[in-house]
């Protein structure tokens, strides 16, 4: 039956199978055509699109950090260099993974809490597979320990990098500032592509001001990477352009002398060449070690520095605002001569105090017994207050202010380091606005002896002294002397001439000679500097009662006994006929400013005498 059935249908079945096979064959061909069409679409029509994607996959641009420019002093001494250090770098991964890794690493190499925090902070800014520094400046021992255990830490490697180093430590910190790690906030403001390979940037001082010269131009290498981000080979390299080397006008030797002379004090020294405005020395004491900031301060270190009552982070040369005291007197005398209000020979009789007509108030001279018969020369040499009371009364506050402004007080000196503050030249309108009070004649008298509201920074004082020494031809103070580009090309900075203060030459001469008497005259307030002096020197002492400045409030509370003592200010220039150096020295609550100025001048002028070719 079954067999019969099969036999009966055999031919029909074969035909059926033929039909079905052809049908299925047709379906298969249709499917294959779909596949071919798809391949044509992908490989021919979309080819360019996918080719681009494929290149984006495996070609990647890695930035190369440019070498930061070096900084030299005027004699070519290196004061900021790049030293090779060995850093422990970790390929960025997931946070949890990273924390475990750090735990493991810290078993063989100590990782501080600060380093860990810094690392995690940086980790957020980096992409996967980018390298993040975990620990910088490995010691040789740590290096050896790591290499022995390296197989346990894939993705962790030791990288030799150049790190900023300041060989003189705190000596140049008020000038140079320091570099530090770029933080998240700064990253947003930087040219991201140029800083793609940089971890550090100038944070303060010259390092910050000339960041655009020092940093250089980033380089790139085009590399082939595999799917896990490892570089397989380098295809092309665009070398970075190193930052420019900077030569500063600072004289290291002089800086050293001033720094050493300030030891034990709290204060600042600024020395300027009056012939061109170049800053020869700029010292604030005490100072901090900028190398600490390169490494990154630990919390403890930062707190210690903050808690130091002498405030080493406070750059007194640029930001310290002091009452000018009697150093204001030569400038006012010059104005009075110029205005014809007094003549150099005019004499007054000083009984030891001054009274405004119709007013009971007595304004004392610092010498209660009085100076007797006083002319201009004696008034400056002995710093006679009574003489300047009557002089400032005659001059009036308006002309006093104008004179001070002419000499650059009350405004930034535009020193190419930034940071500085403007000081204060007080005027009736200022008083009205800030204190809501009228200007009293007493305020003018106080201004006349530099005890009122007037404030000046050491760099302003030095700058004004240089202008005074150069008989009115001022220069904006500058630090940058030369730029050396990678190609070796040198670019010199030109002196920045200021508008000449037009005063008759004889009046300048009068003031110079009067200032010489401060040292030369046996009655001069700094006569003790005259001993062994090998050159002619003009100066003016100043003593300022300490004002409760905002910056100093904390400081005052901490050092109450010393706080009662006055600040000493001394401005000077030498030699008188051809001034080569003008200095301003401030010592807080100490009288040593004059001696420090002499030490600095000796060092500069005697060294110059030995090397006249400078």
């Amino acid at each position, binding site marked *: 039956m*079954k067999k019969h*059935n*099969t036999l009966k*249908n055999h031919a029909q*079945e074969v035909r*059926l*199978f*033929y039909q*079905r*096979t052809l*049908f*299925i*064959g047709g379906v*298969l061909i249709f*499917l*294959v055509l*779909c*596949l*071919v069409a*798809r*391949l*044509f679409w*992908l*490989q*021919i029509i*979309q*080819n360019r*699109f*996918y*080719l681009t*994607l*494929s290149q984006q*996959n*495996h070609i990647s641009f890695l930035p190369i950090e440019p070498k930061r420019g070096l900084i030299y002093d005027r004699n070519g001494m290196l004061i900021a260099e790049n030293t090779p250090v060995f850093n422990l770098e970790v390929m960025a991964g997931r946070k949890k993974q990273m924390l475990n890794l750090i735990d493991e690493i810290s078993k063989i190499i100590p990782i501080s809490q600060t380093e860990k925090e810094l690392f995690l902070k940086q980790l957020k800014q980096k992409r996967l597979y980018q390298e993040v520094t975990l620990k910088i400046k490995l010691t040789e021992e740590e290096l050896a320990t790591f290499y022995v255990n390296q197989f346990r830490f894939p993705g962790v490697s030791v990288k030799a990098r150049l790190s900023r180093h300041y060989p003189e430590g705190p000596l140049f910190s008020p000038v140079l500032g320091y570099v530090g790690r770029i933080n998240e906030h700064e990253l947003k403001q930087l040219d991201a592509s140029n800083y793609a390979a940089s971890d550090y940037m100038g944070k303060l001082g010259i390092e910050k001001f000339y960041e655009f010269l020092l940093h250089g131009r980033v380089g790139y290498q085009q590399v*082939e*990477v*595999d*799917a*896990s981000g490892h570089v*397989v080979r380098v295809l092309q390299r665009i070398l970075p352009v190193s930052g420019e080397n900077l030569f500063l006008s600072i004289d290291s030797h002089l800086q050293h002398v001033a720094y050493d002379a300030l030891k034990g004090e709290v204060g600042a020294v600024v020395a300027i060449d009056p012939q061109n405005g170049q800053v020869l020395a700029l010292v604030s004491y005490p100072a901090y070690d900028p190398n600490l900031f390169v490494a990154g301060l630990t919390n403890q270190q930062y707190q210690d520095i903050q808690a130091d009552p002498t405030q080493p982070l406070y750059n007194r040369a640029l930001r310290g605002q002091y009452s000018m005291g009697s150093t204001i007197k030569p400038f006012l005398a010059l104005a009075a001569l110029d205005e014809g209000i007094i003549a150099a020979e005019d004499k007054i009789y000083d009984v030891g105090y001054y009274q405004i007509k119709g007013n009971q108030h007595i304004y004392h001279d610092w010498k209660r017994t009085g100076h007797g018969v006083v002319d201009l020369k004696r008034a400056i040499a002995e710093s006679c207050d009574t003489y300047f009371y009557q002089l400032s009364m005659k001059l009036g506050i308006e002309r006093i202010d104008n004179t001070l402004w002419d000499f650059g007080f009350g405004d930034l000196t535009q020193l190419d380091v930034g940071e500085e503050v403007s000081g204060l030249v007080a005027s009736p309108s200022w008083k009205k606005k800030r204190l809501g009070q009228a200007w009293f004649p007493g305020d003018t008298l106080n201004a006349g002896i530099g005890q009122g509201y007037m404030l000046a920074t050491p760099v302003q004082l030095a700058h004004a002294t240089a202008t005074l020494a150069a008989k009115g031809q001022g220069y904006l103070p500058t630090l940058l002397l030369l730029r050396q580009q990678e190609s070796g090309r040198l670019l010199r900075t030109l002196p920045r001439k200021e508008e000449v203060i037009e005063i008759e030459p004889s009046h300048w001469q009068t003031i110079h000679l009067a200032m010489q008497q401060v040292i030369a005259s046996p009655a001069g307030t700094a006569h003790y500097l005259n001993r062994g002096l090998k050159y002619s020197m003009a100066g003016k002492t100043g003593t300022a009662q300490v004002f409760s400045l905002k910056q100093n409030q904390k400081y005052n509370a901490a050092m109450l006994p010393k706080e009662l003592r006055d600040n000493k200010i001394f401005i000077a220039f030498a030699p008188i006929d051809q001034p080569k150096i003008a200095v301003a020295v401030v010592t807080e609550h100490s009288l040593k400013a004059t001696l420090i100025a002499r030490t600095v001048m000796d060092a500069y002028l005697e060294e110059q005498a030995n090397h006249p070719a400078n």
Partner: protein
Amino acid sequence: MSILNFPTLWSKARKKGSPYVTIWELLHLDLILVFALSLLLVVGLIILYSAANQEVVVLNRQILRLALAWLVLFVCAQIPPQRYLFWAPYFFAVSLGLLIAVLLLGHIGKGAKRWLDVGFIRIQPSELLKISLPMMLAYYFHDKSLPPRLGNVIVAFLIIFIPAGLIAKQPDLGTALLITGSGLAVLVFAGLSWRWLVGALVSVVCIAPLMWHFMHTYQRERILTFLNPERDPLGSGYHIIQSKIALGSGGLFGKGWLQGTQSHLQFLPEHATDFIFAVCGEEFGLVGTLILISINLLIVGRALYISMQASDTFSRLLAGGLTLTFFISFFVNTGMVTGLLPVVGIPLPLVSYGGTSMVTLMAGLGIVMSIATRRKLIAA
């Protein structure tokens, strides 16, 4: 030429009038299929050498597997179709039993229970079903009058969907779809009514949402990703995106042998196994992929021709089903690599690195050859 012609001439001279006209028939091998397969294997090895990053060890292992596969093909070709007819139900029963065993005590590989460890060898019962299922269907229909009646079709559906369901549960969606496809193909070959065919298609569309409900999360992921690879470019969409980049960047002539960046730099995952077709497309371009497709079409076309020439129902259906198994493997793999189909783990026949499926497919083709060289005997 002479090499190919030599056996024919030789045998014609020596054995005129004998049923064994050529040495190929003596060996029960089909010349065209052997030629196409050899071509595919050579091309496959060339691609694999590049895909495996020029590791000779990998190549050696593959050659060893190929030798084994050829041996299996040869052995299968020696067994006459009647023997297969006799053993078909037992073979099916055993493979189904193993399939159940694997679900109960199978080994877990890549998140799925597929292997059965029998001490010296690891058996993947789902592979056995690629052969035993079409064989069982051919057996079932061989003495029924065709086109099949409703009752027969229902039984056939049971034969298909019971193992398919078990395999899908492992879960191995790719193989489940593969055997379902080849099983349904046998039904179509057997003359399933067009009306029912259309009805089945419609019901599949209706059942699809229900299937969705029973799917594993990873299977759903794959389908969602198939529909939109950009949905998860670094996760499940990564495979297909990288594969399309590899193919698309190849262009007309490709980047050149050993020059593919997608595979050599590890962007393309599974580049020696499931995604080896993309390596071919990247390094040899459209020309390369078309050559590969042509060789496969030659194999499938020849095998279909053989099934048409077969003398009895069992042989026809078996050869047709096995041919479709081969074609579906090829099409599902290339469809997946080109983004036409969702990602299901089916290797490219005879090219992908790995042994199991290669041996199965070669065994199937061995059976096809057995049928090819014995049509006269049965017909007599």
